[in-house]
């Protein structure tokens, strides 16, 4: 029945070329010998050496990593709580405001989020640094986490929790022993999403970072505003590589898990 194959193949091929060619070019030219980025002058890995020896990059990367780990972990806890409140807590005073505050940051332009947080930090006299970036990142990424987790909670069969209570669990135990294991995949993907958002963020970090703390995106930003540089190409390639390996590994692991589950279900069906 699928008779439009040539059209589909063409549009998909062109689309993926469009999506991936810029990255491929960037990766290729990160191995360029020349300082002039657009002229090929032979293969070299010297720019990777430059990146690794660049103290500023390394310390910015270290700051970014710490911010991302801490903020995404807090955001996962808060976001899961918020999701639970949204889906399970029923009616309470200020529920509308609460759900509004969960969804608003998702559509709020980053410049406004950044600006408003900066004005708050100045207003209460908080010194800007790693701590303020963590606060900022936690706030917007907890909203993403709660959206991811609540969509899983909605499809969650509530009678499982009731069964746990019926069998003698306290509410806390039933959450820990029944709910959490079942929503764990959503919680994990929420954490990963929060982690990536934090790694990736330039605008909010620019507003909330002080002179004492510079994240990697801020560092890259100040350097690429001046134009293309081979060092940034090398750094980008490293980052793309890490992400690609991570995503592919994660998808293989989850695919294996699904396959195993299917195999077990098939085996169980046979007498």
């Amino acid at each position, binding site marked *: 029945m699928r008779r439009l194959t040539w059209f*589909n193949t063409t549009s998909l091929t062109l689309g993926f070329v469009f999506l991936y060619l810029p990255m491929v070019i960037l990766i290729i030219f990160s191995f360029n010998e020349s300082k002039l980025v657009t002229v090929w002058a032979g293969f070299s890995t010297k720019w990777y050496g430059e990146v690794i020896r660049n103290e500023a990059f390394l310390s910015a990367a270290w700051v970014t990593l710490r911010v991302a780990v801490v903020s995404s972990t807090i955001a996962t806890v808060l976001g899961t*709580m918020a999701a639970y409140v949204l889906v399970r807590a029923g009616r309470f005073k200020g529920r509308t405001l609460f759900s509004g505050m969960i969804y608003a940051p998702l559509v709020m332009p980053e410049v406004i989020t950044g600006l408003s947080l900066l004005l708050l930090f100045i207003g209460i006299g908080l010194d800007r640094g790693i701590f303020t970036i963590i606060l900022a990142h936690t*706030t917007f990424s907890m909203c993403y986490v709660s959206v991811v987790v609540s969509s899983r909670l909605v499809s969650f069969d509530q009678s499982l929790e009731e069964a746990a209570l019926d069998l003698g669990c306290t509410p806390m135990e039933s959450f820990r022993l029944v709910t959490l294991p079942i929503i764990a995949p959503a919680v994990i993907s929420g954490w990963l999403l929060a982690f*990536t958002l934090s790694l990736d963020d330039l605008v909010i970090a620019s507003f909330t970072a002080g002179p004492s703390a510079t994240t990697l995106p801020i560092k890259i930003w100040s350097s690429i505003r001046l134009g293309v540089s081979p060092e940034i190409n090398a750094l980008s390639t490293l*980052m793309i590589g890490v992400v690609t390996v991570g*995503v592919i590994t994660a998808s293989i692991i989850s695919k294996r898990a699904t396959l195993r589950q299917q195999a077990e279900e098939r085996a169980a069906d046979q007498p």
Partner: protein
Amino acid sequence: MRRAVLILVPYLWLLALFLVPFLIVLKISLSDTAIAIPPYTPTLDFSAGWQGIREFFSELDFENFIFLTEDDLYWKAYLSSLKIAVVATFLTLLVGYPMAYGMANAAEHWRPTLMMLIILPFWTSFLIRVYSWMGILSTEGYLNQFLMGIGVISEPLVILNTNIAVYIGIVYTYLPFMILPIYSALERLDGSLLEAAEDLGCSRLSAFWLVTIPLSKGGIIAGCFLVFIPTLGEFVIPSLLGGSETLMIGKVLWEEFFNNRDWPVASAVAVILLLILIIPIVLFQRNEQKQREAEG
């Protein structure tokens, strides 16, 4: 008791770090610029008691908003942001729809892979994805080298630092947001509906217009809003790929704040941007609601 803690912790966090900051923006947008730290007046002084609060409110005014309407830089920036966002959304739809269609019609065992290829760029740094186009589009960049190499042009094209580069950047970075909702709408489409349309006398093209398009409308609208809303306040793309002609409100706000240190005007710019965004956000919510009802 536990329930109260469960509700209060995220609630207070969001109040303190989302709602209060936003109220501060609103308040500063009504204040005056001053050469001081912080660079605006009045500041709220609780030690002066009730009198202080009354004085504080009496000094707030809409001066900054009036200023925004008088200086045509601002409303031009809003208009041009809107125009760029609308055009870019449309272009993204043109590129995204055929891809989503191709994915939805691809063989079953290919789809997870295609899906991953669409999502993968989303996990890589936004900044790097925008940056990758700088080397391609510059006057001595790869695109010009290629076109001149095969003899299509003799003079390099000026693309980087123009609106064209901004459009390319937006389409490139926001493409997954357009493809995913359309794909999920198309994938749900029951193939027998198309056969029924053909059986009742439609040509393949008219079946596409009369059945496929209306039934993927929800996905199209969702995709358009998902691209349009963040594009309107976009800052990185116009700053890196755009030129002096590229006026976008996110960039204006940034410059107002960091370069001119005019906090009240920056805040007023932010407030108006939000007011503009409320319309598409409400429409988007309605569309989602309608989708859910249609499914349920």
